[in-house]
């Protein structure tokens, strides 16, 4: 017993000594604590036709909207060159969990039946209810984008633990408005979220130099999309990314990303059975029963490339999500997303860069009705989106984006929404700053 205690104590001692050594021996003169971040504000306006379905969706209707989309604050603490703690907090002006929903009044005129539902039920409807890690306030929202502790041993072994942004493609990790060319990320990283945006778990990353080429890799183990509960060790999600930077052009990078995970949300009910022994004594027994609300396996694959030469940048990502929906007896469904962006630095001086850009995105749903996140009232084949505009950057840290965008929803054949009701043109302007 004593020996066991001793072992326990010596374990702590070794841990403390290791920590002290790590945080003191390699102490550097560089800045240990840093605070920085970025912020952006957007003005947007859509021009839907009066019969368009988007007339009934807040912020996709004809009203102009001002929105303070992000105030992201980073805190980095690096006591020495081997240890780092990084946290990124995001503040958003709009509440993330409420959305105005248009009411519907149904008037039916026919030789057999005339009716008027009379009442329209416009409501403030909750959304993002199952999204975890977000604290909701009436005036806005706050989320921990990432918070991780990293131990950098050498070029090959760098371990991190905590909440991290999924290493997938180019613009999931490079998610800040000063870095993204367009006003918003491609929808496959936001609305469709083919790869999970962030996860909680452990990660290992490193680099290998192959001649003049650089190969970087990341592997991770996590609790999966939306931080799932783990009923079994096999519920852990796993993923990774490999990126190859070749010494060609001004920039030539190719990447492969993958993720395999399981979503498992259960409702647990306590069933209490009470038996009367006599008039004053009861014998009760409680049994807990689970019912599957969401249960699916998913595999996500992605490839990306970024090429740059003569001030011309080409960037593309192709991502595919393959789902076995176990609630529907393993029904197959999935999403394929791809985008292609071309940008040209038409004017580049030390303090001002003008970059016209164009981006085309296509997202296709396979059997959307079987998708766990499908909206049964608006099933789509997919959608196409075009964004074209001008990114004006001043002094690296400030900028304005002026953009025209057009979205065409591709509805399923039997949908009651007609084709001309599915187009959503719009314009937007965004001011961003990195600090």
């Amino acid at each position, binding site marked *: 017993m004593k020996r066991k205690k001793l072992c326990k104590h010596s374990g702590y001692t070794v841990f403390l000594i290791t920590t002290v050594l790590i945080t003191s021996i390699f102490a550097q003169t560089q800045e240990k604590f840093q605070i920085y971040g970025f912020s952006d504000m957007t003005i947007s306006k859509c021009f839907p036709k009066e019969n368009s379905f988007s007339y009934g969706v807040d912020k996709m209707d004809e009203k102009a909207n001002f929105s303070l989309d992000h105030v992201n604050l980073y805190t980095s603490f690096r006591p020495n060159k081997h240890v780092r703690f990084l946290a990124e907090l995001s503040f958003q002006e709009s509440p993330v969990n409420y959305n105005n929903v248009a009411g519907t009044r149904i008037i039916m005129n026919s030789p057999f039946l005339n009716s008027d539902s009379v009442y329209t039920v416009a409501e403030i409807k909750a959304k993002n209810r199952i999204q975890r890690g977000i604290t909701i306030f009436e005036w806005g929202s706050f989320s921990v984008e990432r918070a991780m502790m990293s131990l950098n041993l050498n070029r090959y072994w760098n371990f991190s633990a905590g909440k991290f*942004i999924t290493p997938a493609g180019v613009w999931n990790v490079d998610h800040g408005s000063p870095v993204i060319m367009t006003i918003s990320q491609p929808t496959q990283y936001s609305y469709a979220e083919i790869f999970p945006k962030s996860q909680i778990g452990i990660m290992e990353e490193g680099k290998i130099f192959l001649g003049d080429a650089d190969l970087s890799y990341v592997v991770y183990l996590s609790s999966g999309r939306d931080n799932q509960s783990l009923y079994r060790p096999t519920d852990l999600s796993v993923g990774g990314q490999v990126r190859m930077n070749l010494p060609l052009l001004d920039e030539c990078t190719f990447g492969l990303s993958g993720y395999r995970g399981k979503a498992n949300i259960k409702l647990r009910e306590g069933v209490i059975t009470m038996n009367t022994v006599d008039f004053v004594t009861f014998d009760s027994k409680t049994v807990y029963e689970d019912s599957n609300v969401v249960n699916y396996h998913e595999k996500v694959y992605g490839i990306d490339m970024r090429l740059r030469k003569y001030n011309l940048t080409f960037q593309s990502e192709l991502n595919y999500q393959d789902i076995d929906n176990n609630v529907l007896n393993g029904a197959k469904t999935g999403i394929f997303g791809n985008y292609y962006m071309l940008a040209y630095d038409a004017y580049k001086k030390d303090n001002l860069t003008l970059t016209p850009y164009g981006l085309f995105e296509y997202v296709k749903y396979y059997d959307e009705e079987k998708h766990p996140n499908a909206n049964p009232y608006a099933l789509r084949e997919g959608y196409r989106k075009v964004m074209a505009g001008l990114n004006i950057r001043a002094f690296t840290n400030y900028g304005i984006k002026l953009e025209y965008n057009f979205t065409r929803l591709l509805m399923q054949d039997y949908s009651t929404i007609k084709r001309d009701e599915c187009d959503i043109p719009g314009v937007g302007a965004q001011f961003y700053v990195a600090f």
Partner: protein
Amino acid sequence: MKKIYLFLLALCWAGVSFGGDFVVIVSKDCPLASVSTTDLKRLYTGKLENIDGTSVSGTNLSMDNPAAVSFLSEIVGMATTDYKSFWLAQQIRGGSTAPAVKKSVSDMISYVKDNANAVGYVPKDAALDGVKAVEVK
């Protein structure tokens, strides 16, 4: 034949000096005698912290210094605007920290002189007091 030798000589000279207006420097205590352009590029883009077993950290001159413009263009392959954008992206990605910046050549020389693991660069005509020049291969 003589012309070929002259041509090869000229090529070698261009390879060593890079024709740039800068000299790469380290402290006299630093064991580095030469460094490849690839390693220098990796060092100044946050990918490398160790050259030939020696722990190193890059240091930049202020971006308006002609030596900085020349060094970034010839070694890192970026204009100063692109280099600043690169480090902004690194910061947002949560990557490594940008190399320290020294405002003047004298600041750079005294910093490198006092830090055995610092790598810097100065204009070609600067007096190398307490530091040594490193051959760029």
